[in-house]
């Protein structure tokens, strides 16, 4: 494995300033005494794309919930943009496997919903201008007044990207965002996601089950192992940007995928 620089977390990618920092974060569910996360430290730098991958039960959803401010860690420091995370915040954007658009609202009303909730209706009305610009970016021009029932799965996820971006979050937390889509749409949406993240210079953190998806999108891949959930290794992907789907046929891509699969298999054997 000479072509990929696989090392522990002390190797930092040469990108922007740290945006999101987790230091020695642990989570124990007291009721059933399960250690969901054990001493996880990670740093997301401005403009970087990181993924976390691991089998089910490795604590990646717990990690994501802590990073989203939905649940507190048992131990450790969680700091976003210099301020400790003590709950959900405007500068944290999140996206789920399901688009979770509300069918009684038009696409644009769904997109400005975070503004409506945080700042009220008047602010939401003003934000519609920005929402239209975002719809333009994701290629949903002209769909602002369409109800979500009329959108395809991919289109709905594009709209939910807009909803995530409307508050200009400092970090994007992506919880298997395209795994409910068919494979063709999924590849296309991943390339779209890369383009949008580059355009917005966004800091993104993706939870995924797909090694290929993690490798094609990420600068850093956090490989997690279960029981207790912990970071096994940080793999830095040495592929040039922008990534293209053609890169999935290159030897380097294959090697990286195999290397990560090897790490995950070792975890299974335990």
């Amino acid at each position, binding site marked *: 494995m000479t072509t990929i620089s696989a090392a522990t977390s002390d190797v930092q990618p040469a990108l922007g300033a740290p945006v999101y920092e987790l230091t020695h974060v642990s989570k124990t569910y007291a009721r059933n005494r399960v250690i969901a996360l054990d001493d996880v430290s990670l740093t997301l730098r401005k403009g970087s794309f990181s993924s976390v991958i691991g089998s089910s039960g490795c604590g990646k959803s717990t990690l994501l919930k802590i990073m989203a*401010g939905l649940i507190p860690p048992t131990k450790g420091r969680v700091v976003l943009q210099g301020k400790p995370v003590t709950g*959900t*915040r405007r500068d944290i954007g999140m996206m*789920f496997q399901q688009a979770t658009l509300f*069918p009684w609202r038009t696409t644009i009303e769904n997109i400005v919903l975070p503004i409506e909730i945080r700042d009220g209706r008047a602010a939401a009305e003003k934000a519609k201008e920005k929402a239209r610009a975002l719809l333009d970016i994701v290629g949903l021009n002209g769909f602002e007044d369409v*109800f979500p*029932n009329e959108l395809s799965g991919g289109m709905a996820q594009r709209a939910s990207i807009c909803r995530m971006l409307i508050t200009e979050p400092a970090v994007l937390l992506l919880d298997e965002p395209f795994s409910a889509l068919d494979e063709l749409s999924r590849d296309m949406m991943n390339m779209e996601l890369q383009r949008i993240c580059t355009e917005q210079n966004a800091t993104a953190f993706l939870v995924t089950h797909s090694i290929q998806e993690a490798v094609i999108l990420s600068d850093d891949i956090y490989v997690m192992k279960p029981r207790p959930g912990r970071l096994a290794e940080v793999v830095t992907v040495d592929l040039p940007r922008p990534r293209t789907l053609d890169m999935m046929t290159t030897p380097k891509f294959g090697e990286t995928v195999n290397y990560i699969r090897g790490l995950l298999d070792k975890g299974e054997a335990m």
Partner: protein
Amino acid sequence: MSDANLNTDENVTPDTVWVEHTSFVDQIPRSILMLFVFAVFVGLWQIATSFNLVSSIVLPTPVETFNDMIFVGKNLLTGDYMLSALWITTKEVIYGFALAMAIGFSLGILVGETAFGERAIMPYLVALDTMPKVAFAPLFIAWLGFGIESKVALAAFIATFPIVVGTAAGLHATDENSRMLFKTMGASRLQTLFKMKLPMGLPQIFTGLKIGAVGVMAGAITAEFLGGGKGFGELIRVAASQLNTPRVFSLILYLSILGLGLYALVTFAQRRIVFWHRDTVSK
């Protein structure tokens, strides 16, 4: 079979072509099918009465009933006493339904949204709901008198429970992702309730409203039977006591228009408000 051969070879024999057959019933318009059932029903009714299979006091002939319907219809159209009776019953039903909605939504939110309501209040509501609510009619009459109030009370009493249950079920119909999304957006409890839980629960709420709309009619008429007054139920009771069976039948038919009207109103509101719900739209 010529249509089926359009895109196949000329020399294909018809029996090798697989053609989709629609069943006979599917080819007939629905209105004609319904008319057919109606004709069979009236025919059997006519046979039963003209061959004296049942006494005419028990079951009048279709013609007698039809004639009486014309009489009652004229009375209603000329604004005679029957119209004022129908208006009284209509008022009872509307007030009863409005009251049931007000109480039903409030209790439904209390039970569906708060742990206290769900754990401490819901058991009592379930217990009350299993009681035969019509049995409370004499109490309402004793408390509220023979006027419209006792009828409104029983009508509302019967219609409240399905609305409570529908509202509570609707509030529980939210999915994990929606709740998480609202949390990440920093939504308050009230915002979550009004912008997510209630709209998302509207299909269940409307199911409760429809059941309530049926119950409210039953409540109003039962209370009129037991507590007098000047409503349509009283007309039915008097006609029945005079063995005027054709009148009973025609009054019931006109009364069902009121019930259908209320149900249609709820369905109309449902289609306008819950336009986004698949089952609602397709029905």
